[in-house]
Protein backbone atom coordinates (compact mmCIF):
# COMPACT_ATOMS: atom_id res chain seq x y z
CA UNK A 1 0.00 0.00 0.00
CA UNK A 2 1.31 3.47 -0.77
CA UNK A 3 1.97 5.68 2.20
CA UNK A 4 -0.68 8.21 2.96
CA UNK A 5 -0.34 11.16 0.70
CA UNK A 6 1.22 8.99 -2.01
CA UNK A 7 4.81 8.31 -2.96
CA UNK A 8 7.30 11.05 -3.36
CA UNK A 9 7.69 12.17 -6.92
CA UNK A 10 10.35 10.29 -8.82
CA UNK A 11 13.28 12.46 -9.60
CA UNK A 12 13.79 12.06 -13.32
CA UNK A 13 15.02 15.51 -14.21
CA UNK A 14 18.17 15.31 -16.31
CA UNK A 15 21.22 16.76 -14.65
CA UNK A 16 23.72 17.51 -17.41
CA UNK A 17 27.37 17.92 -16.45
CA UNK A 18 28.46 21.49 -16.07
CA UNK A 19 29.85 22.69 -19.38
CA UNK A 20 32.82 24.94 -18.84
CA UNK A 21 33.68 25.45 -22.49
CA UNK A 22 31.67 25.45 -25.63
CA UNK A 23 32.69 23.12 -28.44
CA UNK A 24 34.08 25.92 -30.54
CA UNK A 25 36.14 27.16 -27.61
CA UNK A 26 37.56 23.70 -27.00
CA UNK A 27 38.55 23.18 -30.63
CA UNK A 28 39.90 26.67 -30.79
CA UNK A 29 41.85 26.13 -27.59
CA UNK A 30 43.25 22.88 -28.89
CA UNK A 31 44.41 24.47 -32.10
CA UNK A 32 45.85 27.39 -30.18
CA UNK A 33 47.79 25.18 -27.83
CA UNK A 34 49.13 23.03 -30.65
CA UNK A 35 50.17 26.13 -32.52
CA UNK A 36 51.94 27.51 -29.47
CA UNK A 37 53.69 24.22 -28.82
CA UNK A 38 54.70 23.93 -32.47
CA UNK A 39 56.20 27.41 -32.34
CA UNK A 40 58.21 26.55 -29.25
CA UNK A 41 59.25 23.25 -30.81
CA UNK A 42 60.54 24.95 -33.93
CA UNK A 43 62.38 27.56 -31.89
CA UNK A 44 64.00 24.80 -29.87
CA UNK A 45 64.93 22.85 -32.98
CA UNK A 46 66.59 25.92 -34.43
CA UNK A 47 68.56 26.50 -31.24
CA UNK A 48 69.65 22.86 -31.08
CA UNK A 49 70.69 22.86 -34.74
CA UNK A 50 72.62 26.05 -34.22
CA UNK A 51 74.41 24.59 -31.22
CA UNK A 52 75.29 21.40 -33.06
CA UNK A 53 76.50 23.31 -36.11
CA UNK A 54 78.69 25.48 -33.92
CA UNK A 55 80.23 22.47 -32.19
CA UNK A 56 80.77 20.73 -35.50
CA UNK A 57 82.21 23.90 -36.99
CA UNK A 58 84.74 24.20 -34.20
CA UNK A 59 85.91 20.66 -34.75
CA UNK A 60 86.05 21.18 -38.53
CA UNK A 61 88.17 24.28 -38.00
CA UNK A 62 90.63 22.32 -35.88
CA UNK A 63 90.72 19.30 -38.15
CA UNK A 64 93.57 20.37 -40.49
CA UNK A 65 95.84 21.27 -37.60
CA UNK A 66 95.24 17.99 -35.81
CA UNK A 67 95.52 16.02 -39.03
CA UNK A 68 98.86 17.63 -39.90
CA UNK A 69 100.22 16.72 -36.49
CA UNK A 70 98.82 13.19 -36.72
CA UNK A 71 100.28 12.67 -40.19
CA UNK A 72 103.75 13.52 -39.01
CA UNK A 73 103.52 11.21 -36.03
CA UNK A 74 102.11 8.47 -38.26
CA UNK A 75 104.89 8.72 -40.81
CA UNK A 76 107.53 8.74 -38.08
CA UNK A 77 106.02 5.57 -36.69
CA UNK A 78 106.00 3.94 -40.14
CA UNK A 79 109.74 4.48 -40.39
CA UNK A 80 110.24 3.09 -36.89
CA UNK A 81 108.14 0.04 -37.77
CA UNK A 82 110.15 -0.60 -40.90
CA UNK A 83 113.42 -0.49 -38.99
CA UNK A 84 111.91 -2.70 -36.31
CA UNK A 85 110.91 -5.29 -38.88
CA UNK A 86 114.37 -5.22 -40.42
CA UNK A 87 115.90 -5.77 -37.01
CA UNK A 88 113.47 -8.55 -36.15
CA UNK A 89 113.90 -10.48 -39.40
CA UNK A 90 117.62 -9.95 -39.92
CA UNK A 91 118.39 -13.63 -39.31
CA UNK A 92 115.85 -14.84 -41.87
CA UNK A 93 117.50 -15.34 -45.25
CA UNK A 94 115.81 -13.81 -48.29
CA UNK A 95 113.47 -11.75 -46.17
CA UNK A 96 112.60 -8.41 -47.69
CA UNK A 97 111.02 -5.77 -45.53
CA UNK A 98 107.37 -5.08 -46.27
CA UNK A 99 106.97 -8.19 -48.39
CA UNK A 100 106.56 -11.93 -48.00
CA UNK A 101 110.03 -13.14 -49.08
CA UNK A 102 110.04 -10.56 -51.83
CA UNK A 103 106.39 -10.95 -52.82
CA UNK A 104 104.61 -7.63 -52.31
CA UNK A 105 101.01 -7.30 -51.19
CA UNK A 106 99.98 -5.40 -54.31
CA UNK A 107 101.45 -6.71 -57.55
CA UNK A 108 101.73 -4.35 -60.46
CA UNK A 109 101.51 -1.20 -58.38
CA UNK A 110 104.23 1.40 -58.51
CA UNK A 111 106.91 0.62 -55.92
CA UNK A 112 106.51 3.97 -54.23
CA UNK A 113 102.72 3.84 -53.94
CA UNK A 114 101.46 4.54 -50.46
CA UNK A 115 99.05 1.99 -49.07
CA UNK A 116 97.74 2.79 -45.68
CA UNK A 117 98.80 -0.08 -43.45
CA UNK A 118 96.24 -2.12 -41.64
CA UNK A 119 95.87 -1.14 -38.01
CA UNK A 120 97.00 -4.56 -36.77
CA UNK A 121 100.10 -4.24 -38.95
CA UNK A 122 100.73 -0.77 -37.68
CA UNK A 123 100.69 -2.08 -34.11
CA UNK A 124 102.44 -5.36 -34.97
CA UNK A 125 105.59 -4.50 -33.03
CA UNK A 126 103.87 -3.13 -29.95
CA UNK A 127 101.98 -4.98 -27.26
CA UNK A 128 98.41 -6.12 -27.68
CA UNK A 129 97.39 -3.75 -24.92
CA UNK A 130 98.45 -0.79 -27.05
CA UNK A 131 96.45 -2.05 -30.01
CA UNK A 132 93.45 -2.63 -27.81
CA UNK A 133 93.68 0.87 -26.42
CA UNK A 134 93.50 2.28 -29.90
CA UNK A 135 90.92 -0.09 -31.36
CA UNK A 136 88.56 0.08 -28.39
CA UNK A 137 89.02 3.80 -28.10
CA UNK A 138 85.33 4.51 -28.35
CA UNK A 139 84.52 2.28 -25.41
CA UNK A 140 86.64 3.94 -22.82
CA UNK A 141 86.49 7.48 -24.03
Amino acid sequence: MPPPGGYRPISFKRVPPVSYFSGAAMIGGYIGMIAGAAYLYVQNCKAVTKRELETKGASLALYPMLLAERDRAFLKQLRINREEERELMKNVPDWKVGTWYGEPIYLGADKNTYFKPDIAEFYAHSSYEELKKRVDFRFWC
Partner: protein
Amino acid sequence: MTITDETILPTEEELTVQEINLTGSVLKTAAFHLGKACEYENNEFILCREETQDPRQCIKEGRAVTSCSLNFFQQIKKTCASEFTQHANCIDKSSSDQKFEPCRKTQAVFDKCVKDNLGLDRPPYDYFNKIHVHKTARPKPPVEGPAVYPDATPGLPDDVEKPPSKYGNRYLFFW
Protein backbone atom coordinates in the same frame (compact mmCIF):
# COMPACT_ATOMS: atom_id res chain seq x y z
CA MET B 1 103.47 -4.06 -43.68
CA THR B 2 102.78 -2.37 -46.97
CA ILE B 3 105.79 -0.15 -46.43
CA THR B 4 108.74 -1.68 -48.25
CA ASP B 5 112.30 -0.52 -48.78
CA GLU B 6 111.26 1.06 -52.06
CA THR B 7 108.62 3.19 -50.35
CA ILE B 8 110.06 6.63 -49.82
CA LEU B 9 109.27 7.93 -46.36
CA PRO B 10 110.09 11.46 -45.26
CA THR B 11 113.09 11.75 -43.00
CA GLU B 12 112.92 12.41 -39.30
CA GLU B 13 114.11 16.01 -39.78
CA GLU B 14 111.36 16.78 -42.25
CA LEU B 15 108.78 15.52 -39.81
CA THR B 16 110.09 17.26 -36.72
CA VAL B 17 108.57 20.67 -36.17
CA GLN B 18 107.43 22.49 -33.09
CA GLU B 19 104.03 21.01 -32.29
CA ILE B 20 101.19 22.75 -30.54
CA ASN B 21 101.01 21.29 -27.08
CA LEU B 22 97.57 22.49 -26.06
CA THR B 23 94.68 20.64 -24.60
CA GLY B 24 91.27 20.11 -26.14
CA SER B 25 89.32 22.81 -24.38
CA VAL B 26 91.92 25.43 -25.23
CA LEU B 27 91.94 24.38 -28.86
CA LYS B 28 88.17 24.47 -28.93
CA THR B 29 88.18 27.94 -27.44
CA ALA B 30 90.43 29.20 -30.20
CA ALA B 31 88.87 27.07 -32.94
CA PHE B 32 86.82 29.72 -34.73
CA HIS B 33 89.47 32.41 -34.83
CA LEU B 34 92.16 29.86 -35.63
CA GLY B 35 90.16 28.44 -38.53
CA LYS B 36 89.63 31.93 -39.89
CA ALA B 37 93.22 33.08 -39.40
CA CYS B 38 94.73 29.99 -41.03
CA GLU B 39 91.99 29.44 -43.58
CA TYR B 40 94.28 29.49 -46.61
CA GLU B 41 96.85 27.11 -45.13
CA ASN B 42 94.15 24.75 -43.87
CA ASN B 43 92.41 24.65 -47.23
CA GLU B 44 95.69 24.04 -49.05
CA PHE B 45 96.54 21.18 -46.74
CA ILE B 46 93.16 19.51 -46.89
CA LEU B 47 93.03 19.95 -50.65
CA CYS B 48 96.41 18.25 -50.93
CA ARG B 49 95.34 15.42 -48.67
CA GLU B 50 92.10 14.86 -50.55
CA GLU B 51 93.76 15.04 -53.95
CA THR B 52 96.70 12.79 -53.27
CA GLN B 53 95.29 10.58 -50.50
CA ASP B 54 98.88 10.36 -49.37
CA PRO B 55 100.24 11.98 -46.20
CA ARG B 56 103.81 11.85 -47.53
CA GLN B 57 103.10 14.41 -50.23
CA CYS B 58 101.52 16.95 -47.93
CA ILE B 59 104.29 17.38 -45.37
CA LYS B 60 105.09 20.87 -46.58
CA GLU B 61 101.47 21.98 -46.42
CA GLY B 62 101.10 20.38 -43.01
CA ARG B 63 104.11 22.27 -41.71
CA ALA B 64 102.55 25.48 -42.99
CA VAL B 65 99.36 24.68 -41.11
CA THR B 66 101.21 24.02 -37.87
CA SER B 67 103.39 27.09 -38.13
CA CYS B 68 100.38 29.27 -38.89
CA SER B 69 98.51 27.86 -35.91
CA LEU B 70 101.54 28.30 -33.71
CA ASN B 71 101.91 31.88 -34.86
CA PHE B 72 98.24 32.50 -34.12
CA PHE B 73 98.52 31.13 -30.59
CA GLN B 74 101.66 33.15 -29.97
CA GLN B 75 99.85 36.30 -31.04
CA ILE B 76 96.92 35.46 -28.79
CA LYS B 77 99.27 34.90 -25.92
CA LYS B 78 100.97 38.19 -26.57
CA THR B 79 97.83 40.28 -26.77
CA CYS B 80 94.78 38.59 -25.25
CA ALA B 81 96.23 36.12 -22.79
CA SER B 82 93.98 36.90 -19.84
CA GLU B 83 90.76 37.08 -21.89
CA PHE B 84 91.64 33.88 -23.65
CA THR B 85 92.47 32.07 -20.43
CA GLN B 86 89.23 33.25 -18.88
CA HIS B 87 87.18 32.02 -21.83
CA ALA B 88 89.02 28.70 -22.02
CA ASN B 89 88.54 28.20 -18.32
CA CYS B 90 84.83 28.86 -18.68
CA ILE B 91 84.49 26.42 -21.58
CA ASP B 92 86.46 23.81 -19.73
CA LYS B 93 84.53 24.02 -16.49
CA SER B 94 81.00 25.10 -17.34
CA SER B 95 79.79 21.84 -18.85
CA SER B 96 80.84 18.26 -19.21
CA ASP B 97 81.28 18.44 -22.97
CA GLN B 98 82.79 21.90 -23.41
CA LYS B 99 79.69 23.66 -24.66
CA PHE B 100 79.98 27.18 -26.02
CA GLU B 101 76.54 28.07 -24.77
CA PRO B 102 77.26 28.93 -21.12
CA CYS B 103 80.24 31.11 -22.02
CA ARG B 104 78.80 33.81 -24.24
CA LYS B 105 79.86 36.59 -21.89
CA THR B 106 83.53 35.59 -21.69
CA GLN B 107 83.36 34.88 -25.42
CA ALA B 108 82.21 38.43 -26.11
CA VAL B 109 85.13 39.80 -24.09
CA PHE B 110 87.58 37.57 -25.93
CA ASP B 111 86.10 38.38 -29.33
CA LYS B 112 86.38 42.08 -28.66
CA CYS B 113 90.01 41.73 -27.61
CA VAL B 114 90.89 39.73 -30.73
CA LYS B 115 89.04 42.20 -32.91
CA ASP B 116 90.87 45.15 -31.36
CA ASN B 117 94.33 43.61 -31.38
CA LEU B 118 94.46 41.23 -34.32
CA GLY B 119 91.64 42.71 -36.40
CA LEU B 120 90.06 39.30 -36.66
CA ASP B 121 86.29 38.89 -36.59
CA ARG B 122 84.70 35.77 -35.21
CA PRO B 123 83.15 34.00 -38.19
CA PRO B 124 79.43 33.13 -38.05
CA TYR B 125 78.54 29.98 -36.18
CA ASP B 126 78.04 27.92 -39.36
CA TYR B 127 80.97 29.37 -41.29
CA PHE B 128 83.01 26.16 -41.28
CA ASN B 129 80.01 24.00 -42.15
CA LYS B 130 79.45 25.83 -45.40
CA ILE B 131 81.21 25.24 -48.67
CA HIS B 132 83.71 27.91 -49.64
CA VAL B 133 85.55 28.33 -52.90
CA HIS B 134 89.30 28.09 -52.43
CA LYS B 135 91.60 29.81 -54.91
CA THR B 136 94.86 27.91 -55.21
CA ALA B 137 97.99 27.85 -57.33
CA ARG B 138 98.25 24.12 -56.88
CA PRO B 139 98.21 22.27 -60.20
CA LYS B 140 95.34 19.91 -60.77
CA PRO B 141 96.39 16.28 -60.48
CA PRO B 142 96.33 14.31 -63.73
CA VAL B 143 93.14 12.38 -64.26
CA GLU B 144 93.68 8.70 -64.84
CA GLY B 145 92.00 7.75 -68.09
CA PRO B 146 90.23 4.49 -68.79
CA ALA B 147 92.52 1.44 -68.74
CA VAL B 148 93.83 0.23 -72.09
CA TYR B 149 94.60 -3.46 -72.39
CA PRO B 150 96.79 -4.56 -75.30
CA ASP B 151 95.24 -8.03 -75.42
CA ALA B 152 91.62 -6.89 -75.30
CA THR B 153 89.25 -8.42 -77.87
CA PRO B 154 89.03 -6.07 -80.86
CA GLY B 155 85.56 -4.71 -81.58
CA LEU B 156 83.71 -4.88 -84.89
CA PRO B 157 84.91 -2.47 -87.55
CA ASP B 158 82.80 0.63 -88.00
CA ASP B 159 81.62 -0.21 -91.53
CA VAL B 160 80.49 -3.74 -90.79
CA GLU B 161 77.11 -4.68 -92.19
CA LYS B 162 74.41 -4.84 -89.56
CA PRO B 163 71.38 -6.56 -91.02
CA PRO B 164 68.07 -6.52 -89.12
CA SER B 165 67.61 -9.53 -86.89
CA LYS B 166 66.07 -12.50 -88.52
CA TYR B 167 63.28 -13.20 -86.05
CA GLY B 168 62.66 -9.73 -84.68
CA ASN B 169 63.02 -8.99 -81.05
CA ARG B 170 61.13 -10.18 -78.06
CA TYR B 171 59.07 -7.44 -76.58
CA LEU B 172 56.36 -7.88 -74.06
CA PHE B 173 55.26 -4.89 -72.10
CA PHE B 174 57.35 -5.83 -69.12
CA TRP B 175 59.70 -8.58 -70.32
